[in-house]
């Protein structure tokens, strides 16, 4: 087999390894928001170190592949897209860390909001998994369909904001709104960055920029 084929496979494998760690971080977020388990929150923060390290590794490998194998055409896009996806994954990991930090600093969230958060998180995970799957199989057609999963997240968040806004107006709630809203943004952003991954994939395969908007 041509050396670059194996090298690129190994390189992508690094991306998948990273993506699994990032996923793990996000599977725990609803849990800790519910229970306020600071231990677990800390372990998410710890995991982020590994994720950051993974991104560094991917960058280094990418640089080595670029320097040593001078890839061209789709090979080249594969490497560049790898770098970009790693950047997005790192961010997505960051958002989990950010949520963990919220848990450490704040009380468990209001029971009323919990179902929203649970829905948001499970939508996100579904979107995330589907995204990494299409990335593995390089399926552009599926990728184009997936973007609507992101809308699920956003619409649930919008509903939660409404609820929150209402509660806030009615002074029903004792939640620190500023912090809570900031925290929620993380889910939204994570979805956005997952969407970026889809865009990168489409670019890798088609050599065309695609913007989900």
């Amino acid at each position, binding site marked *: 087999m*041509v050396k*670059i084929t194996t090298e690129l496979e190994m390189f992508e494998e690094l991306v998948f390894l990273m993506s699994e760690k990032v996923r793990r971080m996000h599977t725990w977020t609803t849990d800790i928001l519910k229970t306020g388990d600071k231990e677990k929150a800390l372990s998410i923060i710890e995991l982020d170190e590994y994720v950051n390290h993974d991104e560094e590794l991917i960058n280094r490998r990418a640089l080595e592949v670029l320097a040593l194998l*001078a*890839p*061209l*055409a*789709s*090979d*080249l896009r594969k490497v560049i897209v790898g770098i970009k996806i790693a950047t997005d994954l790192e961010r997505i990991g960051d958002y989990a860390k950010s949520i963990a930090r919220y848990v450490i600093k704040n009380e468990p969230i209001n029971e009323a909001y919990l179902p929203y958060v649970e829905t948001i998180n499970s939508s996100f995970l579904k979107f995330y998994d589907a995204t990494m799957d299409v990335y593995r199989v390089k399926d552009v057609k599926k990728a184009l369909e997936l973007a609507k999963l992101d809308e699920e997240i956003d619409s649930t968040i919008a509903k939660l904001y409404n609820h929150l806004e209402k509660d806030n107006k009615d002074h029903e709630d004792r939640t620190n709104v500023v912090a809570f809203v900031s925290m929620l943004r993380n889910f939204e952003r994570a979805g956005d960055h997952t969407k970026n991954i889809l865009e990168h994939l489409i670019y890798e395969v088609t*050599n065309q920029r695609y913007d989900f908007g």
Partner: protein
Amino acid sequence: MTIKIKVENLNFYYGSFQALQNINIDIHENRITALIGPSGCGKSTFIKTIDRMYDLIEDTKADGTIAFEGINILDESTDVVELRKRIGMVFQKPNPFPKSISENVLYAVKRHGDQDKKDFPSIIENSLRKASLWDEVKHKLNQSAFSLSGGQQQRLCIARTLATKPDIILMDEPTSALDPIATSKIEELLQELKKEYTVIIVTHSMQQAARISDYTAFFLNGELIEFGETKEMFTAPRDKRTEDYITGRYG
């Protein structure tokens, strides 16, 4: 962009073996066109059709048209001596004549007899300057061309071609006998030359084609598989075979 040479339906035969099959290509003026492809794909053959060097090989035949300045180069009636004066050629291995540096530059000029004797000094200087060689040799114009290094010899061959005032310069792997440093000197020179000349260069090295050319043509088994802008070819080739070749997955 002006098209300098228009090749249409070119077929070429060595005896009964068809080495080029229905080639269509436009060579743009003041651009560098690189020809790449695996060994034996017909790159050198293609270049030999353009200045009719194949006349020197027995039992060869070309059909189709290579339009250049209103004539078809392939026509029997084309004066090849004149043609080769207009279309210079630089070879794989530097092949200076065993004469002094200045004699090398003047060699063809003298034999064509179309330039004034009193201009000879300036022809020498200009040609060598254009070939980025003047500063290195100006103090030893009367020394043998063999006293130069390989890279300098190759630039001397370019200079001697420039002295006949060609429009087009054909180069068949001009750097494959040179080390990387001499190679990069020639590559830099090419960027200068394209301001005044149209250059067609055969190269074994895709990296070189990528670095230096504006257009690239990819040949395979005597066919032209893909032709287009170099940056497109190397970032997003249209044909699967091109992609396989440039990413090293061919063969």
